[in-house]
């Protein structure tokens, strides 16, 4: 028999609760008093326990808001522990499309693939691209999808060999542990094409998996396009599952299922914009923020709010470095097979200065200050999906050519979206070069939890007073934004002056003076 579990009265003024998360899934076997889900009221979070042992059938989803007394789930008390798995399997097989694809080598086992843990701070990812179609045969470890996190793009390998069944769609944001797809495990080789055909032929044409199922009529297709709904997510009621105009009119965007109730508000807003009657120069375009963009925005605001940030400026005569480059460019390239750029000079100069002014290379961690005796220099790179900051490790110990090579390697990977989290984590100080876009002067924002960032700018010829004479020199403004909580004015200004000295007389880099 089936026992209904209702939302209990949890407090006097509380009339409704939101399901925070399910600890047990529909079809799971639960023990009596086992915690099955978390409920959130406006006052507190509490746990819901099973009132009996049996197989659970959920009636509401995480994020749903329920009134006190509403049915939240059912427990089939007749079912024994062993029944749990078959119950789930039955559910799988109730979809005819999946049934028909059962080929010779099928084991009946279904492998659920969830979003793997990809890095400490990453809580959600976006499914960027399916590389394998729904229903494709995939090999074990074959790459089936690309997943974007706020830091990097990952390739997702198949965890089993078999028939792929998509669960998430491209563009979906998934939490770590969220279901991405299922693989119907198949043993042995890929089913041959002829085998596929023969199963198709034996399928009676009336069972709803007609080639025309899900085909939208012309009017229905237009309505769906305007609503931004994929025909795949609409159940067609027409002949052989065709989508009729009525189906399209009734269709709603599949509700996103984030666990946090606040998150569900944002997508709702997205669905709202309606195109103006007469389009023209007042058109706007809305697109979902990528995870990367969301993280960038969160972190930039945090840096502004949580630090006592201010910026000090100076200017650098670039002529000595430019002369040096001119003189040794060819030789350097020949010997090291990499161009001698400005980055190596700046990185070296910064490393020397950081070691002299350790506060600039330090971080606040709670009530403690963490000093580093190494310089992991983050470099800001503008990548197609947004700004990324890969790290040059132990830059203080690297030679000029090693730095240049590392810059090229990291920048290339950034542009291709191939940087790993590892390569972007850590960093004790950041250099950003707005000069490549023509910036004359700017105040960079600290890359938290670091305490300071150096901004490079464009090189412009300016008239300078040198020993009482006006000289035209190639000048660059440099800016150091720093966290005043940890770095004093004396330190920050001295640091920047030191960088200036080292750049204006590169021989000092060599001698360490």
């Amino acid at each position, binding site marked *: 028999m089936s026992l209904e579990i209702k939302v209990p009265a949890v407090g006097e003024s509380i009339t409704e609760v939101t399901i925070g998360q399910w600890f047990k899934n529909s079809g799971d076997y639960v023990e009596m008093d086992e915690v099955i889900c978390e409920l959130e009221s406006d006052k507190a979070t509490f746990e819901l326990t099973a009132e009996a042992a049996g197989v659970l059938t959920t009636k509401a989803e995480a994020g749903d808001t329920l009134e006190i007394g509403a049915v939240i789930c059912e427990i089939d008390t007749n079912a024994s522990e062993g029944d749990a798995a078959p119950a789930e399997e039955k559910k799988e097989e109730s979809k005819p499309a999946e049934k028909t694809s059962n080929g010779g080598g099928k084991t009946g086992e279904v492998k659920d693939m969830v979003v793997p843990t990809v890095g400490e701070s990453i809580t959600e990812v976006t499914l960027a691209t399916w590389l394998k179609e729904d229903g494709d045969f995939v090999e074990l470890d074959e790459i089936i999808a690309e997943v974007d996190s706020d830091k990097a793009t990952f390739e997702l390998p198949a965890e089993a060999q078999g028939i792929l069944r998509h669960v998430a769609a491209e563009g979906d944001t998934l939490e770590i542990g969220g279901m991405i797809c299922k693989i119907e495990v198949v043993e042995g080789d890929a089913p041959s094409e002829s085998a596929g055909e023969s199963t198709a032929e034996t399928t009676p044409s009336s069972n709803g998996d007609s080639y*025309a199922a899900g085909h939208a009529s*012309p009017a229905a297709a*237009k309505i769906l396009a305007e609503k931004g709904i994929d025909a795949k997510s609409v159940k067609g009621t027409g002949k052989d599952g*065709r989508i009729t105009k009525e189906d399209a009119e009734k269709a709603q965007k599949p509700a996103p299922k984030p666990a946090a109730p606040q998150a569900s508000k944002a997508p709702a807003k997205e669905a709202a914009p309606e195109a103006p*009657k007469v*389009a023209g120069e007042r058109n706007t375009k809305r697109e979902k923020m990528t995870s990367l963009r969301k993280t960038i925005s969160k972190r930039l605001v945090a840096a502004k709010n949580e630090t006592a940030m201010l910026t000090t400026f100076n200017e650098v005569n670039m002529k000595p470095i430019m002369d040096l480059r001119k003189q040794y460019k060819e030789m350097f390239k020949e010997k090291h097979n990499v161009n001698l750029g400005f980055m190596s000079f700046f990185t070296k100069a910064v490393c020397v200065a950081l070691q002299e002014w350790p506060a600039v290379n330090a971080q606040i961690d709670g009530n403690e200050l963490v000093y580093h005796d190494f310089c992991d220099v983050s470099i800001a790179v503008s990548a197609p999906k947004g700004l990324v900051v890969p790290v040059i490790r132990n830059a203080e110990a690297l030679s000029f050519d090693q730095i240049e090579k590392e810059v090229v390697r990291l920048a290339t990977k950034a542009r291709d979206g191939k940087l790993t989290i590892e390569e972007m984590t850590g960093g004790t100080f950041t250099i950003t070069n707005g000069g490549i876009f023509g910036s004359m002067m700017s105040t960079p924002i600290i890359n938290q939890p670091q305490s300071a960032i150096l901004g490079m700018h464009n090189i412009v010829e300016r008239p300078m007073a040198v020993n009482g004479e006006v000289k035209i020199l190639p000048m660059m403004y440099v800016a150091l934004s720093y966290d005043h909580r940890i770095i004093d004015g004396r330190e920050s200004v001295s640091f920047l002056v030191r960088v200036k000295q080292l750049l204006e007389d590169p021989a000092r880099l060599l001698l360490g003076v």
Partner: protein
Amino acid sequence: MKYDLIVIGSGPGGYVAAIRGAQLGMKTAIVEKYPTLGGTCLNVGCIPSKALLDSTEHYHNAAHTFKTHGIDLKDLKVNLKQMIARKDDVVKQNVDGIQYLMKKNKIDVHQGLGSFVDKNTIKVTKDDGKSEEITGKNIIIATGSKPSSLPFIEIDKKRIITSTEALKMNEVPKHMIVIGGGVIGMELGSVYARMGAKVSVVEFMDSLIPSMDKTMGKELQKSLKKLGFEFYLKHKVTAVKNRGKEVTVTAENSKGEAVEVKGDYVLVSIGRRPYTEGLNAEAAGVKINDRGQVEVDEHLKTSVDNIYAIGDVVKGAMLAHKAEEEGVLVVEQLAGQKPHINYNLIPGVVYTWPEVAAVGLTEEQLKEKGIKYKTGKFPFMASGRARASMDTDGLVKVLADASTDEILGVHMIGPRTADMIAEAVVAMEYRASAEDIARMSHAHPTYTEAFKEACLAATENRALHI
């Protein structure tokens, strides 16, 4: 004047776009170079040719089949002057109809040559040389096409003519030589063949109406032969000479030998070319490709953001109904809607007798794409309705996917197939299978039964009446 939408050209693409724009609340203007609206289709294309085709079909029947029907006629003769006058009247009714539709939808009609000043400004130059400038937020180029020719042919519009002149002849030619075996040549050739002219067709390709399914070309050739057509297929025209009352066409056959055909008129119908003369598209930055077409993306947008182009002036089949769909598509897009055109399902029709009509893929295309298909054919000879009307030429051919039975192409040649093809379009838009059609009741006795029977044949080769 300032408009939300300016449409240049009032053919079926242009005027439909203007009406749809007005329906969606846009302040709309249409610019037309000629004194009458309707473009090629209404003035010198579909409508007048259909009018003459109908008149001559009546004449042909009176001359050849009435006797069998039991109707005796004496002194039957063609009154070409009256025939042309009736055609002109039909055209006038139609173009007046468009004028009325413009007024009803409060669309401003600017008569004169429209040319771009910049991307929002159109200068309209009237025949008397006076001009005005109007501006529009969005502009649709719908300037259509003109008959094209070969570089060595001088069209004198007297003996060497295009479709335009063929619609207003003063006499029935004795021997009309048609260059080009396409739709226009076959239709206008039919008009004069029915009135007794000898018609010779010189075509470079190996079949008539070469863009359609091969079976259609072959069947049409059979029927037209009965009408007195002569065919010079795989012949490449090398010279056309007007010698006063006689015209000579010299062609090279497949063996490389020179062949000379003499007649009194030559109809040059080798196709049409996009027409953008005087448009001054460069002023707006609109790109025109080397084939003379206005370049557009999948939204029919030109290289300039607020300028669109539709119909014969862009890529794709030169068909009035294609232009209409495109006109609606562009305007609805401007209003923020998301319409779609399935170009594969735009039907093609030829108003010869028997009529030819088709939609979807041809057998040749299916082979090329490597799609496995089944064929179902049904000849009109086996149709009771066709026999009752003595219209037994032709057949219906249905091509369906070998495994799913989905209809992939329908090709018809026979009586009233131009109207019948609509059923195939509906079926294919809904991705019907051949058996779906076979299981729908078709009224008896009608020509449409032939489609049902062909679908039965395609399903499991189980046509009932053959």
